[in-house]
């Protein structure tokens, strides 16, 4: 028994784990795969815009104000209703003009300066906004900000919710009572009021939006994780771990957490969708991202005044981008849930 036998490492090879099996199941889901591709494309776009490959000059005023989309063609010149410019040569006024001797000096100085009048395009691919900025670039840059806010805020909310939920569910008793109390107070206040309160305290900025959404959105995760931990706490495998002397944190995070991680993951992806929508609302109300940045929400807020004048393209671009991403993300989350929890579908 004491002789050191060389062990054949090949027998130690692991068989297919839970995540691999889930991925195999996910690949069989056509809707899930298409939505995953769309989400991946969006992520690529975001990476490109964050590194400045695309939409770096989203603030450049490249078109005429409110330039229509290319497929509509340039706007017909408007009849301004001014008096006609008289024809014939200019009348020579130099003998009575007191400034006449200085014209030469000024034109010499003017020649030293160089002014370039940028040629403003009459039309832009997706149209232009009030200042003539390209709506397409704005939408891409807005995607970056909106998705970034959504993902980061949901990670924060999930982290808070998971920690609180794990503690309440695992320890129970006093800890549970206290956290339930916090939860009740949080959910008793209307969400939007809570968000306003946080926004008023923290001021504007992307970081603030992330913080606000993270601090207000954890309640759902908390409840679910707590319930899962209560369910698993008394499972025999956890008791068995206790019997072999596994520590409290090891039981909580090494044993139980991986067994409820699929619930958390799906919950988190649903939060992303919700938070993107919330960011839009916040920005629309003027509590979101600062004015020198753009998000889908600020675009929608601008679109409100433009729509009265008949400039619908900014609204359309923001809506299309947002609808596409949110729908794809939701469908992907659904597919993940099916893949991770086959019991739900009765497949296995």
């Amino acid at each position, binding site marked *: 028994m004491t002789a050191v036998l060389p062990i054949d490492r090949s027998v130690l090879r692991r068989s297919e784990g839970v995540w691999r099996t889930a991925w195999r199941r996910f690949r069989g889901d056509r809707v899930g795969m298409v939505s995953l591709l769309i989400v991946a494309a969006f992520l690529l776009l975001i990476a490109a815009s964050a590194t400045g490959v695309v939409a770096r000059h989203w603030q450049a005023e490249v078109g005429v104000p409110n330039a229509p989309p290319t497929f509509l063609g340039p706007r017909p010149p408007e009849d301004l209703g001014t008096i006609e410019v008289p024809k014939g040569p200019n009348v020579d006024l130099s003998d009575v003009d007191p400034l006449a001797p200085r014209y030469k000096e000024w034109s010499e100085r003017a020649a030293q300066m160089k002014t370039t009048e940028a040629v403003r395009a009459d039309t832009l691919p997706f149209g232009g906004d009030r200042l003539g900025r390209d709506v397409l670039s704005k939408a891409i840059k807005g995607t970056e900000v909106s998705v970034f806010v959504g993902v980061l805020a949901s990670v924060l909310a999930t982290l808070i919710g998971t920690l609180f939920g794990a503690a309440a569910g695992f320890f129970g008793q006093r800890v549970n009572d206290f956290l339930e109390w916090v939860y009740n107070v949080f959910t008793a206040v209307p969400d939007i009021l809570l968000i306003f309160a946080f926004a008023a305290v923290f001021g504007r900025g992307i970081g603030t939006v992330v913080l606000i959404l993270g601090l207000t959105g954890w309640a759902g995760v908390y409840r679910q994780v707590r319930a899962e931990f209560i369910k698993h706490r008394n499972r025999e495998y956890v008791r068995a771990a206790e019997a072999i002397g*596994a520590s409290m944190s090891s039981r909580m995070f090494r*044993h139980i957490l991986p067994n409820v991680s699929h619930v958390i993951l799906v919950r988190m992806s649903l939060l992303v969708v919700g938070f993107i929508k919330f960011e839009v609302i916040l920005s629309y109300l003027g509590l979101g991202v600062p004015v020198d940045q753009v998000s889908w929400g600020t675009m929608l807020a601008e679109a409100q005044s433009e729509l009265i004048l008949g400039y619908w393209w900014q609204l359309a671009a923001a809506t299309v981008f947002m609808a596409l991403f949110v729908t794809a993300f939701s469908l992907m989350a659904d597919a993940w849930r099916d893949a991770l929890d086959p019991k739900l579908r009765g497949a296995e």
Partner: protein
Amino acid sequence: MLLSIKDLRVDFRLGERGDITRVPAVAGVSFDIPEDTTVALVGESGSGKSVTAMSILNLLPENAERTGVIEYQGRDLLKASLPDLQQLRGKEIACVFQDPMTSLNPVFSVGQQMAEPLRRHLNVGRRAAIDRAEALLAEVGIPEPKRRLASYPHELSGGQQQRVMIAMALACEPKLLIADEPTTALDVTIQRQILELIARLQERHRMSVLFISHDLGVVGEIADHVVVMRQGVVREQGPVARIFQAPRDAYTKALLACRPSAGHTSARLPVIDDHIEGKVPTRAAKPKDPNAPVLLRVRALAKSFFLREGVFGKREFKAVRNVNFDLRRGHTLGVVGESGSGKTTMGLTLLRLHEPTAGEVLFDGRNLLAMNEHERQTMRRRIQIVFQNPYASLNPRFTIGQTLLEPMAIHGIGADTAERERRALELLGKVGLDAAAFGKYPHEFSGGQRQRIAIARCLTLDPEVLVLDEAVSALDVSVQAQVLNLLKDLQDDLGLAYVFISHDLGVVRFVSDEILVMKDGEVVEQASAQQILAAPAQEYTRRLLGAIPRGYQEAAPA
């Protein structure tokens, strides 16, 4: 002939789109159910016995494909339309399932649930249906039937729930009653009552019963005709006396031999495969040393739970009261009792998985209950537990390797991972699994194999005492025999002491040296195994012993 099944095949379709595979569950089964008889379908889990029975009324999941002929009074039920089947269900052919807790709807009262089939099939009014329900409850032996009609399922005990299920099945005077493991979830004493009830009702109503069970002992008492199934085919069928006295098929013989019975003398139980191959367990029993050192000494152990009552009130519920015993090295203490008798709580308290309320547990002379965190951790190595449900006691996200390495890493056994891996592989061999198990996940193993893994996990710590909490109760008879043999081998080789907790006196008396009989948290009888078997002193022990299914007995009245 009431019902005759001819060459029934059932396949389950698995997989989606494109790659569909068919898994055969029943591969050509034929048998008849004559009028006014009890036919028993016997087999281990996965033998296709339930699938066969459920295909009679097509209560199978959608992915089942049935072929063959099921003829009921001249009609082929496989070709019957859904409305036709619904006419039969409940009225002509009724079912009773294994778990009464999940078969009854928790949000309706017993009366409401019983009245529904009556009104649907018999077309009677509400009043008449309630009166009939009351009469039925009285017939299945429920006290105060009128009051019980207004009760909800959770207010009834398991046995009473099963009686209600039987009463519902009887509501429309069916010609055939299908009982799918109706007593498996119940205690032995309740099991006996339900069996007697079914036998009595069968006689009185002159109906036929298709009784499904994995337990030959139960079947022998109730059936007229026995069908033994294995892996989707019928191995043997015949009258009950012939099956028990002169079994022809090797598998039937093996099934009969694997049951630990009262007259069992050999040290090891025969295992089905060995028996079929004609091998006889040869290993002789190692004599127990009556003067072995006492490892575990328990004195006046008590555990109470406090239930909240009102705002500040608390009510004490005494789950375990005044338990005393000595456990010697290499010996086994059996703990028997019905559910709710406190035996599991007692086991968990020994490991301090529950904090005891009073008493002391002396392990090797030192009080386990007065130890601090650090001492406890080292003591944990020496006393370990195996749980009942092999499907729940292993972490599904850990490979077997991780499961086995974790306790060694926690207690610093083995110098490095390589050495621990070597030790884990060695232990896998010891419990009869091959090294390929190391990288696999629990779901890839059967119940018996998982229980072996759970035992291996305990062994990684070199324990001296193992608490086996219903460790073989969830296993099939043949697998049960394998695990019991493994436990005996380990005891002989390593000198382990066991606290063997079970509701099954048949198993307990096979493994134990001393037996503790518990009832309502108290020890009612405590004596050596032989003594308890030969001369039980308490009425309760006698009742437990009397309730063990004995199989077919010629002289016994049916």
